[in-house]
């Protein structure tokens, strides 16, 4: 998968590295800002109230 991506990236190795870094940053941003907030309520590692 990563090898395939690497082959698909255009330009010199240098531009490929930069493009790859931008792609990784974009993936992290989407996870952090969109996906994780959606999944956070499912994880109950910090239940603090007392209730029946």
């Amino acid at each position, binding site marked *: *998968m*990563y*090898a395939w991506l690497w082959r698909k990236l255009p330009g010199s190795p240098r531009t490929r590295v930069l493009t790859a870094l931008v792609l990784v940053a974009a993936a*992290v941003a989407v*996870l*952090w800002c969109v996906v*994780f907030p959606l*999944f*956070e*309520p499912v*994880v*109950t*590692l*910090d*239940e*603090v*109230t*007392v*209730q*029946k």
Partner: protein
Amino acid sequence: MAIPGARIVQEYPDRMRAMLRAVGETSITAGLILMLFCAYLLWGTGAYTQRQQLLLQRELAADRAAQERLRTVRPGQALAVLRIPRLGHDYEYAIVEGVGSTHLKRGPGHYPDSAMPGQTGNFVLSGHRTTYAAPFNEIDELERDDEIVVEAREARYTYRVTSQDIVRPDEVDVLAPVPGKPGIRPVRAFITLTTCHPEYSAAERLIVYGVLKETEPRSE
């Protein structure tokens, strides 16, 4: 061939290698995403709380300037400022009304059915221990006679810690007007803090009890 599948490996080595590589890459990616998710839970959620705390503090400051007193409290409204000197001189959180998940993400929350600050009865607060800025992370370090200061709009209430307990998550007796003794009419003002225990777990609850020591009306 004794080993099933070995024939496939011999006949299609390239396909096998590609498949194993895909499985490996997926596992590594999943692991990295999980690690990132843990980082988000521990630190990312705190950024949200910090922003919400600023809004709540601003709400309190505006009311204080206008000498506004609270008549009715709505869920989500800023109730008071909580200070615990033992946990640092800069330990300061705005308390929000309500203990729903949306409320607790903003800061320590007040059980709507419990007493108001300084009132006779039990003033009960819940707060996150590990996520969302973790306001109650260190309340297990509170010792007897440590001060818990609640600055409401009308007065500053200083409670002193009396004891700590670890209870089951459904032990609602700790919320009673006299903590632990449901059905008894209170004559004193208590404070009760609840959070999860042990850290990173929902198995039990850590409870810190206190009693009102001093009331200073706001003189402004």
